[in-house]
């Protein structure tokens, strides 16, 4: 019975609902007819559910605000108001406000309040119905076909629980709310109605007596049966009135319920419909049966009740219907997914990691013993471990679309603010990525998209001059590529202006006045802190903050950034992220006494280092007619001792780069559980982390992308420097001879 845990579920669910609301808002602008109605319904349902959940946690302000949004949506749904652009804007603002409220609850801050928003809401809520928008008058509900017996079940998928607390509940030291909370731990409370009909006049009221009643619609978790629910109310069953009706209970059961509860058929019936226990048709049936029984001599006033029921407020009926649609949607979702705490998943993956290490150790010992049977059984065991590892890791993978989905709104708002016409294209949303990374990618992507909109896309006039479509296009794309996930942010704008970047870089002293620098290196200058080529600062970007943060965040996740930009045609920023941060397939190599691990996904092939290459002190070799540059890790890492006679080359590929890594020995594949090197090594270059070998020794994992990139940049810079020195030397000699 943990309220905090329940609250966490509330945040998550509400966030999902707000996201759904936003998606519907974006779609409603361009839709019409039944589609538009469906979107409005979706928004209404989202607001309605949030209101309900907020009520459970006693968040009065949130309930009040959400209720007003709901009313506004209801008027729209009923066509009492026309859906104007202003109104859509207001709904966006309302959604954001709800989101802010949710964040405030989460961070335990004060609830935000916006007088302007409330005023706008008031204006719309008090506006008389737009008569032109009214739909054709409602036809009276079709006559209900009634089965007299009541032997068939109702449509509701939920348990219905009726509670009438006995007067002594409080005196016995029990708190009614604690039962509700405990019930909540067995499933989800879908709808709850508090009945205070039994409250006497204040002067007759006994402060220590309990007069409360509750009607609850309850979605039980999979393992919960009737006994479990009954047990919840064990302590009060003796002196309280507890009725539990299973899902799809017989109509006759409801007839009995209504008859036995003290509130009367009309009141209870309305509650049942509102809570979704009964559809209005079913209620009609229940009341009909009751009337028949009553006419047989039990009650007198039921004829009136029925009339009243027929005229039941349309809202209640609507709500009941909405609830049912929601039930269907919810049910399908429940079948698809199980909510699991991320920490528990991480715990599982840690354990699998330990299992992998322990497995490697046993295999090592088995090899030393040389027992064939043992080796065989161990190899089938390790195959299973490998599969468990893959499954466990895939549990943490989530589609990248989870982050993409927030961008339609971002692009819409930003485009509007800048007065540009921009469309967003999304692709590869199904590409999966480690959950921990998805969470951290949101902000960097946001920066990049805003940059593309602000600096990338030109104004419409300029676009027309350049012979491009009036509207600019920004796209987000994700795909897998040799062991990494690539996420692209592209635009068809003006491209980056290299001269401008050069000038700014020289101004800021990042570049010598006549320093030669590679194209990629020049473009990467925009990631320097405080670097901006924008002429004017807009609210979106141009302050020169952000891009360096983007780069830092991406590199902290062992990813890297590439820029491709064609003047006049556009820019693509490519983020290349490792697939996972937990366990990888590795390839083990030795340098002197040390062991290093190369991510196997990046290894293409291995070969001997040709002797003539060593002799010629070249740093490239001929790989079946292709030039393959290589890095001598011995030199790079300053490994002591003498290199063996024959060294090996591991050919690695990373993105479009291909290179060789020269090592002493090849030691074969392993599963590497990545252990972070810790804070002390945060500045380290060329290493992606460490892992523990079967022998118990620590091996370091090479950061191949970083090694290749640094090698390329370093060599260019070194050559540029030496050619400058040469030029200086020549000019000096000229002066001397003169």
């Amino acid at each position, binding site marked *: 019975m943990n309220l905090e845990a329940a609250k966490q579920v509330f945040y998550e669910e509400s966030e999902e609902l707000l996201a759904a609301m936003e998606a519907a808002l974006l779609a409603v602008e361009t839709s019409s007819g039944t589609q538009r109605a469906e979107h409005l319904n979706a928004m209404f349902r989202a607001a309605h559910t949030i209101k309900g959940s907020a009520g459970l946690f006693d968040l009065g302000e949130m309930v009040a605000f959400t209720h007003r949004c709901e009313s506004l949506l209801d008027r729209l749904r009923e066509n009492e108001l026309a859906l104007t652009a202003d109104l859509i804007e207001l709904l966006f603002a309302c959604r954001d406000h709800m989101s802010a409220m949710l964040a405030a609850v989460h961070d335990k801050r004060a609830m935000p309040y916006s007088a302007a928003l409330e005023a706008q809401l008031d204006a719309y809520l008090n506006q008389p119905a737009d008569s032109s928008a009214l739909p054709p008058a409602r036809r009276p509900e079709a006559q209900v076909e009634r089965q007299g017996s009541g032997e068939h079940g109702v449509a509701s998928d939920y348990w219905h629980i009726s509670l009438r607390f006995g007067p002594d509940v409080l005196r016995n030291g029990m708190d009614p709310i604690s039962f509700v909370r405990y019930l909540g731990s067995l499933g989800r409370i879908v709808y709850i109605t508090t009945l205070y009909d039994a409250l006497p006049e204040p002067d007759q009221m006994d402060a220590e007596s309990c007069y409360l009643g509750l009607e609850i619609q309850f979605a039980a978790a999979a393992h919960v049966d009737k006994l479990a629910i009954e047990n919840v109310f064990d302590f009060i069953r003796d002196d309280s009135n507890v009725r539990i009706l299973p899902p799809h209970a017989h109509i006759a059961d409801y007839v009995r319920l209504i008859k036995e509860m003290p509130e009367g058929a009309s009141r209870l019936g309305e509650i049942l419909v509102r809570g979704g226990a009964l559809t209005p048709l079913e209620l009609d049936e229940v009341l009909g049966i009751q009337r028949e029984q009553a006419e047989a001599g039990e009650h007198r006033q039921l004829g009136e009740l029925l009339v009243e029921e027929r005229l039941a407020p349309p809202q209640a009926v609507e709500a009941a219907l909405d609830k049912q649609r929601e039930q269907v949607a919810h049910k399908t979702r429940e079948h698809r997914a199980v909510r699991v705490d991320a920490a528990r998943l991480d715990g599982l993956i840690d354990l699998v990691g330990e299992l992998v290490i322990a497995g490697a150790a046993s295999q090592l010992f088995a090899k030393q013993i040389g027992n064939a049977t043992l080796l065989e059984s161990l190899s089938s065991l390790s195959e299973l471990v490998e599969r468990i590892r893959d499954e466990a890791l895939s549990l943490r993978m989530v589609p990248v679309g989870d982050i993409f989905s927030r961008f339609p709104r971002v692009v819409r708002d930003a485009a509007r603010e800048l007065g540009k016409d921009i469309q967003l294209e999304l692709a590869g949303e199904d590409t999966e990525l480690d959950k921990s990374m998805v969470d951290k990618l949101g902000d960097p992507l946001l920066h990049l998209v805003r940059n593309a909109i602000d600096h990338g896309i030109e104004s419409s006039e300029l676009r027309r001059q350049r012979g491009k479509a009036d509207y600019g296009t920004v796209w987000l794309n994700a795909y897998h590529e040799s062991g990494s996930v690539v996420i692209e942010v592209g635009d068809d704008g003006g491209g980056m202006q290299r001269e401008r970047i050069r000038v700014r870089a020289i101004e800021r002293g990042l570049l010598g006045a006549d320093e030669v620098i590679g194209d990629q290196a020049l473009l990467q200058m925009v990631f320097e802190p405080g670097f901006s080529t924008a002429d004017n600062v807009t609210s979106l970007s141009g302050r020169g903050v952000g891009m360096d943060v983007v780069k830092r965040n991406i590199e902290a996740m062992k990813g890297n950034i590439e820029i491709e930009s064609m003047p006049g045609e556009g820019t693509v920023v490519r983020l290349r992220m490792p697939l996972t941060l937990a366990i990888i397939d590795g390839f083990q190599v030795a340098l002197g006494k*040390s062991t290093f691990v190369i991510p196997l996904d990046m290894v293409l092939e291995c070969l001997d280092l040709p002797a003539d290459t060593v002799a010629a002190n070249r740093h490239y070799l001929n790989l079946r007619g292709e030039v393959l540059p290589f890095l001598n890790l011995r030199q790079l890492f300053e490994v002591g001792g003498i290199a063996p006679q024959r060294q090996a080359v591991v050919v690695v590929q990373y993105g479009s780069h291909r290179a060789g890594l020269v090592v002493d020995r090849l030691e074969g594949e392993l599963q590497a559980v990545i252990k972070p090197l810790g804070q002390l090594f945060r500045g380290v*270059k060329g290493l992606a982390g*460490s892992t523990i070998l079967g022998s118990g020794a620590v091996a370091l994992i090479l950061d191949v992308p970083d090694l290749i990139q640094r090698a390329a940049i370093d060599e260019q810079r070194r050559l540029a420097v030496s050619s400058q020195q040469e030029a200086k030397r020549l000019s000096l000699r000229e002066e001397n001879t003169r």
Partner: protein
Amino acid sequence: MSQSLMPLRRGSAPQVEPIEQPQYLTFRLGAEVYALEILHIKEIIEYGGLTEVPLMPRFLRGVINLRGAVVPVIDLAVRFGRPATEIGRRSCIVIVEVEYADGWHDLGVIVDAVDEVLELRPDDIEPAPAFGAQLRAEFIRGMGKLDGRFVIVLALEHVLSISEMAELAGVDSLLDAETER
């Protein structure tokens, strides 16, 4: 077990509880004896199984596997500006806990030999001399008096400051790359 102790304390009049003396572990490094407050020390293990990390400053000797966790190992002698510690028969790695940013981090420290655990009363500890200890002033918490000799009580938070060492490591790896060019 702890329950059986409880009744003794509960209800009894406030009595003079013996003030716990801070305990210190003394160890040798070169010719000098140093002391570290025992609160920070998790365990002492035999030297071995060290993996060197390339391109790191010399005071960062490498990493070890401590029951599945990868723990960096520091050579205090280098950190104190002396030649690197030679590994001998009695060399040990003292595992200490250091607080930094988001929590506690384990670090290993190579020492030539571990001596003993002793108690030092606060008035047994003299303030550090202005000079003469051949150490950066903030590294010394004080000079402990022990049988007429002095032991240098180290200020762990400065000696093993992660932020400072990480900065050095970052700069050093850049410098190495620079000279390599």
